């Protein structure tokens, strides 16, 4: 077992035994389910909207070269600097380079999972640039020096008490039990940062090919401030974010809000098409768009799982996943948690290192059912399992399976095995749970029912003779 699988197992074991944590996450999600369902029901047809969203994303991803080209040429026409980054290193180097070239002193950042993916903050920190996360949840986990727990709700695992203690420790604020007061503490800190920052870094939710714009979805207004006040704006955009037309947003913005946060629409949905244009009073002097591949083209090459690139990172599949709710977001050890993370991480970071995530599923299909763009998530977990075994056949398992088949196909052998079992089972009980118990992996969390004294065949034979 590799180190990632070991860590996952250990963490999952710890979290699943933590009833407080499970109850907490369930409670946090109950409100989301109610709101999500309320806003879904306002659609004239949610399934119709899903179909259309899936088809639109299919169109974009399956003609990605064309739409990316269009997106970039329109952006460049209005003075945006576009950098194509084949890998994480190139993207980091470019952004560090921009910061250096402009002698940036402080950097404000709005929420971007893509930036987490390339560990951008670490890279900038190493070069001496201070980066402050402006999204409240991200700011909280940044102060705690831990990764986001959930790709949409980064601090959902924390109580107000924990956050109050954290702010008291790190910011010297008065302890309080009121979420509004806590939010205002962060607001005051952040206001100063916005006014002082000379570089803003954001992600993007959508990239519109037709008009050459990025679209950013948020509730707090932090992304708007991040992209309005500093003199440089850098947006890090995964190549899969492309949508063909501006009008596609009319569908995607309400859908993202509904499945992502249980809202009819999020508070701010903003389109950025360039740096400050002539005649405009504010906005950055320079706008850089960094287009990131970082092995997305590897996933694109897998036609069977290509639809995983349709993902709009709404997090809906995490919220319904029984595994996520039990093992928690931090157990995954990945940037993208939950079913979508288990599907794409093996593509982004190596199948053999991350194949264990595909086993961490009940295959209930709740993720596929809830996905707004109809990604066939739970089947892709099966595809990953198959591909992993194909690349590295599990010889012992194969042997055991072959033995099992041999036994099941030969009645005499089966009867012999059953009678051995009847003798062996009482012996197993004597050593049950100890290191001598050959079944301990199974019996640790399950019971092993006693074998019947007589088999069906024996009973049948007796019935026939009497």
């Amino acid at each position, binding site marked *: 077992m590799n180190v990632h699988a070991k860590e996952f197992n250990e963490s999952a074991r710890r979290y699943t035994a933590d009833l407080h944590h499970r109850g907490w996450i369930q409670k946090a999600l109950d409100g989301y389910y109610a709101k999500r369902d309320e806003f879904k029901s306002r659609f004239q047809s949610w399934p119709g909207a899903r179909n259309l969203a899936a088809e639109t994303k299919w169109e974009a991803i399956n003609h990605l070269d064309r739409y*990316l080209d269009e997106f970039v040429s329109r952006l460049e026409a209005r003075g945006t600097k576009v950098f194509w980054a084949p890998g994480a290193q190139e993207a980091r180097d470019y952004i560090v380079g921009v910061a250096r070239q402009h002698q940036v002193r402080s950097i404000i950042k709005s929420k971007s999972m893509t930036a987490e993916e390339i560990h951008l903050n670490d890279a900038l920190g190493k070069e001496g640039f201070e980066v402050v996360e402006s999204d409240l949840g991200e700011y909280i986990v940044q102060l705690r020096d831990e990764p986001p727990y959930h790709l949409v709700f980064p601090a959902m695992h924390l109580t107000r008490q924990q956050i109050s203690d954290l702010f008291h420790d790190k910011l010297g604020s008065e302890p309080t039990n009121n*979420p509004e007061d806590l939010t205002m503490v962060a607001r005051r800190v952040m206001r100063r940062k*916005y006014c002082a920052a000379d570089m803003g870094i954001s992600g993007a939710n959508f990239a519109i090919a037709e008009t050459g714009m990025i679209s950013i979805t948020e509730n707090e*207004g932090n992304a708007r401030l991040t992209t309005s006040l500093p003199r440089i704006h850098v947006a890090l955009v995964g190549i899969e974010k492309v949508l063909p037309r501006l009008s596609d947003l009319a569908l995607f*913005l309400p859908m993202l809000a509904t499945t992502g946060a249980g809202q*009819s629409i999020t508070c701010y949905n903003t389109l950025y098409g360039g*740096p400050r244009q002539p005649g405009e009073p*504010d906005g950055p002097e320079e706008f850089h768009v960094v287009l990131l591949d970082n092995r997305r083209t590897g996933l694109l090459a897998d*036609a069977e799982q290509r639809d995983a690139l349709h993902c709009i990172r709404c997090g809906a599949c995490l919220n319904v996943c029984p595994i996520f709710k039990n093992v928690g977001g931090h157990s995954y050890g990945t940037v993208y948690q939950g079913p979508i993370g288990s599907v794409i991480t093996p593509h982004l970071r190596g199948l053999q290192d991350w194949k264990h995530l595909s086993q961490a599923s009940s295959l209930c299909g709740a993720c596929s059912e809830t996905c707004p763009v109809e990604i066939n998530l739970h089947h892709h977990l099966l595809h990953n399992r198959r591909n992993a075994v194909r690349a590295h056949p599990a010889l012992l398992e194969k042997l055991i399976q072959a033995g099992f088949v041999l036994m099941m196909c030969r009645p005499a052998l089966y009867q012999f095995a059953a009678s051995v079992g009847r003798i062996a089972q009482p012996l197993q009980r004597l050593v049950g749970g100890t290191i001598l118990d050959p079944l301990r992996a199974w019996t640790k969390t399950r019971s092993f029912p006693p074998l019947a004294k007589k088999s069906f065949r024996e009973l049948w034979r007796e019935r026939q003779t009497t």
Partner: protein
Amino acid sequence: MTNREIILGRIREALKVPAPHPAFQELGRADLPVGPDARQRVPTAPQKWLPPVGKTLEDQIELFRQNTEALKVDFHVCANVSEAIQHVKKLAAEGGWKKVGRHRGELTDAVARELSLAEVQTDRGYAVTDLESCDAGLTECEALVAQTGSVMVSAPSAGGRALSVLPPHHVVLARRSQMVPDLTAALQHVQEKFKDKFPSFISFISGPSRTGDIERILVLGAHGPKKLTILLLP
């Protein structure tokens, strides 16, 4: 080879194997190859699936009212400009405004003239700290969206990027003719208006700034305005 060529090359190589179209998967035929039909499929308009919107302007104003109420927006239909002025004066008195940020415009000029407060005009650039110390931001807009209760603003219609997000109270002055049924119509409006000369900033604002990051409890005024007022004028 440039990075652009590298990435586009990888994409073209990857797309040599076609992926099944979702419409075929629906039929339980995921194995069906991509035919010319699939490539030419133009997705239908989303209005058919999205929440319904009434046809008449009155219906749309009513829907907008309901949606903005749910979003905790202070929305008022004003019979004329002087009613709007009275309302803003009331807000200024209640909020103890000392300074407002605004941009030049027919409606903002008319209201600001009567307010007689210190002003920061953003049209020709401004100092961030000046705008930050304003008690309210007064803007016009591109459109109001009935379906979602959103205000669509752009750099030219709302005095740039920051005016509608930096001061703690955002007041929008809109005309009845700016009401559109849905997001599709709003996006179409800016496409027709700006053609290829888009402003660098266009935003849909749906309610005052908010967060649920602490225990999923709604708090208004996360980083942007704590209050949003929309006044609909004839």
